[in-house]
């Protein structure tokens, strides 16, 4: 709507500001009426005018000022006329004054309502422009597609073009299901497919350069417009999928390392357990030989046989040693690593562990001085073992939390701590938990902590356990800091 502009259109901003003052309306009223009286005096030369020249004075006042100033203008005009112009009778004067008041007030009211309309329209157009801008920004930064009632593309944002791998001009008018397999807008209308915010279905767009997994949030327009029926917001899930895949890969790799580690740990533990009785037996046999020597020639033959038996025991020891060497984890040696990056790799694996049970795994690491020497996959295995143990201990408890902390504790040690708010470890079990084949879990082999300790020790540290401030157990170990990496 075009609003006729009154005086204000020509008014400079300074004048507008002046007019906003309360008293300025009255000044305008006085000036306008005075000017009109002068004008009428000039017009006296050509003819007789009574109220007519004063009408513009009131209208000008009404155009720029409020009701009170206008009332003053009307009052002044009437007073001036009563004083300056002699009328035949008081009735004539009164009727003219009343008529003047009615006419000018009517015009003034029109003025005011026009002003109010103009102001409102200004606000509305401003708001509209703002919305338009917001919409454009959203469309420019989001892949959005608008479909008509038949499921044909009516609009698509530049991002949507890139994501779908189509040019805008060839896509417009095409049915959307030609681009996305199995997509049918009718399914959303009938409720067979969930609308925005409730769906986790993954759609696929087959592009010549590969497949893109998509999440599509569908919103149906509340009024039934033919051309803009549904608004589709697309999300590219490629990155999320890649991250998932990486997490799964790492998980598989860790599983393999775990199997090798536990086999090695079994061998080591078996070797240790068998070596004890073999040592005792060989030593006892040696003692018998010494005793038999005292029997002289009589014992010689028996002593020789005992010597052979002793040899067989030592041979068994050799077999065990070889088996252990074969299964011992092949350390590729420690390399320069960043502790935060090694832990960050496990984020995906942690989210697999977090699962739907409300478990939260928080990581808080000192990122500035995190240069360490470590064997990446083995370190990750050790950390994962501790986290998984904590998760097992937290099963079925309220508000389960695991916190992984990393900080520098001395010039050459970076400490990793895994704390939980589970039941903790009873004091009487503290001595035995690290021993292989010791387990408190129904399905466990009792190798987790033992394997973890072996890994920690191969990093030159020792695995410690204490009470956590969170209420559960706190396992900690140190990695050797890599000072060289830090200085480069």
């Amino acid at each position, binding site marked *: 709507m075009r609003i006729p502009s009154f005086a204000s259109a020509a008014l400079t901003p300074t004048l507008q500001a002046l007019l906003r003052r309360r008293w300025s309306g009255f000044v305008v009223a006085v000036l306008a009426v005075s000017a009109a009286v002068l004008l009428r005096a000039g017009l006296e030369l050509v003819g007789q005018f009574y109220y007519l020249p004063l009408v513009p004075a009131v209208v000008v006042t009404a155009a720029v000022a409020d009701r009170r100033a206008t009332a003053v203008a009307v009052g002044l005009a009437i007073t001036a006329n009563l004083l300056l112009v002699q009328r035949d009778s008081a009735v004539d004067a009164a009727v003219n004054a009343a008529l003047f008041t009615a006419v000018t007030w009517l015009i003034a009211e029109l003025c005011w309502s026009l002003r109010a309309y103009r102001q409102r329209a200004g606000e509305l157009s401003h708001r509209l422009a703002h919305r338009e801008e917001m919409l454009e920004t959203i469309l420019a930064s989001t892949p959005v597609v608008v479909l008509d009632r038949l499921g044909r593309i009516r609009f698509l944002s530049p991002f949507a073009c890139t994501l779908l791998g189509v040019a805008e001009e060839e896509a417009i008018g095409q049915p959307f299901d030609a681009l996305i397999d199995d997509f049918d807008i009718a399914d959303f209308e009938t409720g067979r497919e969930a609308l925005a915010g409730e769906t986790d279905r993954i759609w696929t767009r087959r592009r010549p350069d590969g497949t893109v997994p998509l999440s599509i949030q569908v919103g149906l327009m509340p009024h039934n417009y033919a051309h803009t029926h549904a608004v589709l917001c697309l999300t590219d899930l490629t990155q999320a999928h890649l991250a998932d895949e990486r997490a799964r890969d790492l998980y598989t790799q860790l599983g393999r390392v775990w199997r090798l580690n536990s086999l090695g740990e079994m061998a*080591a533990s078996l*070797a240790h357990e068998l*070596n004890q009785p073999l040592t005792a037996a060989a*030593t006892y046999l040696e003692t018998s030989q010494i005793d038999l020597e005292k029997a002289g020639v009589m014992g010689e033959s028996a002593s020789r046989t005992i010597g052979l038996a002793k040899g067989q025991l*030592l041979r068994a020891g050799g077999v065990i040693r070889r088996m252990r060497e074969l299964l011992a984890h092949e350390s590729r040696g420690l390399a320069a690593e960043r502790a935060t990056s090694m832990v960050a790799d496990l984020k995906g694996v942690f989210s697999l562990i977090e699962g739907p049970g409300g478990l939260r795994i928080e990581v808080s690491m000192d990122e500035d001085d995190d240069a360490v020497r470590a064997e990446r996959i083995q370190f990750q295995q050790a950390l994962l073992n501790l986290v998984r143990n904590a998760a097992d201990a937290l099963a079925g408890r309220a508000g389960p939390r695991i916190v992984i902390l990393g900080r520098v504790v001395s010039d050459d040690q970076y400490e990793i701590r895994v704390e939980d708010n589970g039941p903790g470890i009873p004091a009487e079990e503290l001595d035995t938990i690290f021993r292989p084949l010791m387990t408190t879990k129904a399905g466990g082999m009792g190798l987790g902590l033992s394997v973890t300790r072996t890994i920690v020790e191969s990093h030159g540290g020792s695995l410690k356990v204490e009470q956590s401030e969170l209420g559960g157990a706190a396992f900690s170990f140190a990695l050797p800091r890599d000072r060289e990496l830090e200085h480069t």
Partner: protein
Amino acid sequence: MSDHSVFVIDDDEDVRDALVCLLRALGIRARAFSSGTQFFDNLPEAPSACVITDVHMPGMDGAEVVRRLVELKGHAWPVIVITGHAEVPLAVQMMKAGVIDYIEKPFEPNRLVEVVRGSFAHLDDLLLDRAEAEIAARRLARLTAREYEVFLALVDGRTNKQIANDLQISPRTVEIFRAKVMEKMEAGTLSALIRIGLKAASGKPPKAATGT
């Protein structure tokens, strides 16, 4: 062979029993302890002994036993480590800590016996040295302050004339002091005196050293 003892520390009852049996059969005094803590709580009072310890034990481990023994007894209590978990880094760490041997279980018992006997021979030498040092120190303590000064000068290889000059006495007086020193130190020749002087120096510092 003198009467050194062997102390066996192992958490495996059968291993320590077998070792004690073997050592006793060989006529060596032996005693077993089931843990490092038990050993240090009942630390035997012997001037010298050989200790055989396991590495992986609950509570105090072998490394800790070695560390505390070296700290408490020095070389007079040599340590032999036996382990069912042979690991190169651990072996290096133990040898650095001052153990005389590191033997992987199961072992040829004879080998352990050889090492024990070797440690005994070493201990004998050590004790003999100590005894001689003690005798030398005792003799040195008999010297007067002036005689000690002359003794130091002699051991330093100075001639009578130089000594007389150093101490501002006549060469004749030096002759007399020298004869007295030789007599009190029970040394027939100058080289014997020097040997006794070195022995004394390896033992405790003699009282006379503080004289003027």
